[in-house]
């Protein structure tokens, strides 16, 4: 949670925009610099999907929990994770959030409730449910939020986790980003035509809603409402957001040359970019001006560059650190 969007209206909108632009700026800077060969780990960028990270992230409290998967930069930043620690981690530095042990696919910032993201598809879904169980046991009003892609709903563990969350009425928010692809595999080769994830989630006993992930206000509103009711003890909620990734599955490049995404689909979704569309609406409503936007972009880039400098200037861990910390 970068700024407090609980203040309604203008400030909240600006906070959401800021959050999305910040994620975009980080991701694009990673993409631009990846070829330097200093970030030596697989990175799954989330450009195009910032609406979900920002909308859900801003709706969560800092003491709420969140877990995620391989494509977690946005979720981490949206939840308020430390940018410098993230970039240092991607650079393999000792100042990284995992001290260099985890890399891009393993982000953590316990100080803001980001409990961890991991690289096995679906792997953190039951973990998020377990965090929900711990919340229930402790009797707090926290929420545990689980981010995952539509591919993860093909893993059996998703159903096991959902069943238990419903059975025990746990305070868990399931957030599924449906970006139509798993790596280069379209939905059509993985799920039957007409599949409704919300339909399944609903039959499993959750309130389930589908939203448009590229409309950050819609995401924010749906998340806020869900979180409110979860806090009130009404049990888990499933939110599915339609969205699209702009860059290749893993790595810094565009991969339109591979042809696995139909060109018209690609163009359609690029035109639906969550940031430009929100900027346009804010400009039209005169909530912000072009100058504001430019100033934000400049400030953000400066912050990000500074974080990169921090990461680059940081030391590498000692080689012997590799052998430490196996046991707690």
């Amino acid at each position, binding site marked *: 949670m970068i700024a407090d969007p609980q203040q309604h209206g203008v400030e909240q909108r600006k906070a959401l925009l800021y959050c999305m632009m910040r994620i975009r700026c980080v991701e694009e800077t990673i993409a631009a610099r990846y070829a330097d060969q200093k970030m030596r780990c697989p990175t799954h960028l989330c450009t195009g999907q910032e609406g979900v990270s920002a909308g859900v992230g801003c709706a969560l409290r800092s003491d709420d929990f969140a877990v995620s998967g391989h494509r977690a930069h946005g979720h981490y930043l949206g939840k308020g994770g430390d940018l410098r620690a993230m970039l240092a981690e991607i650079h393999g530095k000792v100042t990284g959030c995992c001290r260099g042990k985890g890399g891009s696919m393993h982000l953590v910032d316990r100080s803001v409730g980001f409990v*961890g993201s991991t690289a096995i598809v679906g792997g953190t879904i039951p973990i998020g449910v*377990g965090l929900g169980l711990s919340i229930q046991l402790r009797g707090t009003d926290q929420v545990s939020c689980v981010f995952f892609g539509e591919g993860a709903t093909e893993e059996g563990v998703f159903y096991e986790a959902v069943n238990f969350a419903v059975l025990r009425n746990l305070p868990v928010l399931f957030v599924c980003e449906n970006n139509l692809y798993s790596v280069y595999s379209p939905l059509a080769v993985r799920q039957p035509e007409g599949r409704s994830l919300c339909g399944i989630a609903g039959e499993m006993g959750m309130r389930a809603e589908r939203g448009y992930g590229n409309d950050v206000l819609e995401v924010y509103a749906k998340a806020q409402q869900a979180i409110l009711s979860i806090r009130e003890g009404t049990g888990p909620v499933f939110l599915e957001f339609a969205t699209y990734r702009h860059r290749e599955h893993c790595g810094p490049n565009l991969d339109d040359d591979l042809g696995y995404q139909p060109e018209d689909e690609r163009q359609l979704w690029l035109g639906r970019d969550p940031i430009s569309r929100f900027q346009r609406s804010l400009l039209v409503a005169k909530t912000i001006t072009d100058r504001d936007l430019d100033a934000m972009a400049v400030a953000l880039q400066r912050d990000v560059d500074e974080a990169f400098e921090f990461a680059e200037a940081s030391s590498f861990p000692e080689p012997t650190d590799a052998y430490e910390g196996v046991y707690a």
Partner: protein
Amino acid sequence: MSRVRTYAQAVNEGLHQAMETDQDVICYGLGTPDPKGVFGTTLGLQERFGVQRVFDMPCSENGMTGVAIGAALNGIRPVVTHQRVDFFLLAMDQLVNNAAKWHYMFGGQGSVPITIRLIIGRGWGQGPTHSQHLQAWFAHIPGLKVVMPTTPADAKGLLISSIFDDNPVVFLEHRWLHNAQGDVPEGDHRVPLGEAATARTGDDVSIVAMSHMTVEAIRASDHLKAQGIGCEVIDLRTISPLDWATVLASVRRTGRLLVADTGSRSGGVGGEVVARVAEELGDVMKCRPRRIALPDCPTPTSSALTLGFYPRAAEIAQAVGSMLGLPSGADALEAQRSGPHDVPGEWFRGPF
């Protein structure tokens, strides 16, 4: 004053004690609160500690392991019970990719204090999918601790230590030990993880054993003593991290090593013990090391097929005898066997 309990009762006491000591300890698993209470080990827990802390679960081994991990990351100490090791094959992803690595891969931000109780089946036609021993698998994974108690006292003491250890612990109970009896200390009895026990002392051969094979090794050792052969029986208790100091000191003294593994031979824990000893002491051994283990095949179901399947005291005695070039009297030991070979005792009438 002696305080005799069965192994199952000792486990039950350990669970009660841990839950009493720390209200963050919770306990779940298929059948945990059912009327049979997982061979008696979980009886009374739900009545005592309530449905929030003690509960049954859906048939979802992988998911419920992940749930334990998540809860543990917020300071809960879950004890999860599975009635057979075999069922837990469904949960290897959560155990290995998440629980074992979490503390390391997040640079120390968070740890996973879960205890996974798994029961090793044997006998009465348990067959191929109800009697696997996978301690070798667990011990191969950095970040896991693996415990295999033999005595009731150790079952209690190691269980409490496992629950309060900040790492994921795989706690393997052998079904044939649940009815074994022994002195069990009252209260918060803890046995440190990572320390082997010397169950018998002797100068001629070191027998390194674990779990139910320790029982067989002791039987063999007591018998061999009468033949004038001194066996040191080391009960590993913790398989990982393994107490190499104790093993190596013993073999350095005796110059002979026999490992009695409850699992199958190839790639088993027994091989690791032989390998490590060969690496460290290979040139000072008085004879070749040996291991006794299950054959490299799935467990058959028919009692006719399990007849020679599980090595027992006689095989251990025989191996020791042949290592020393002395008569072992294994036949006499074998002749003491009575009753059907495929039950843990006369009290057992099936079906599991």
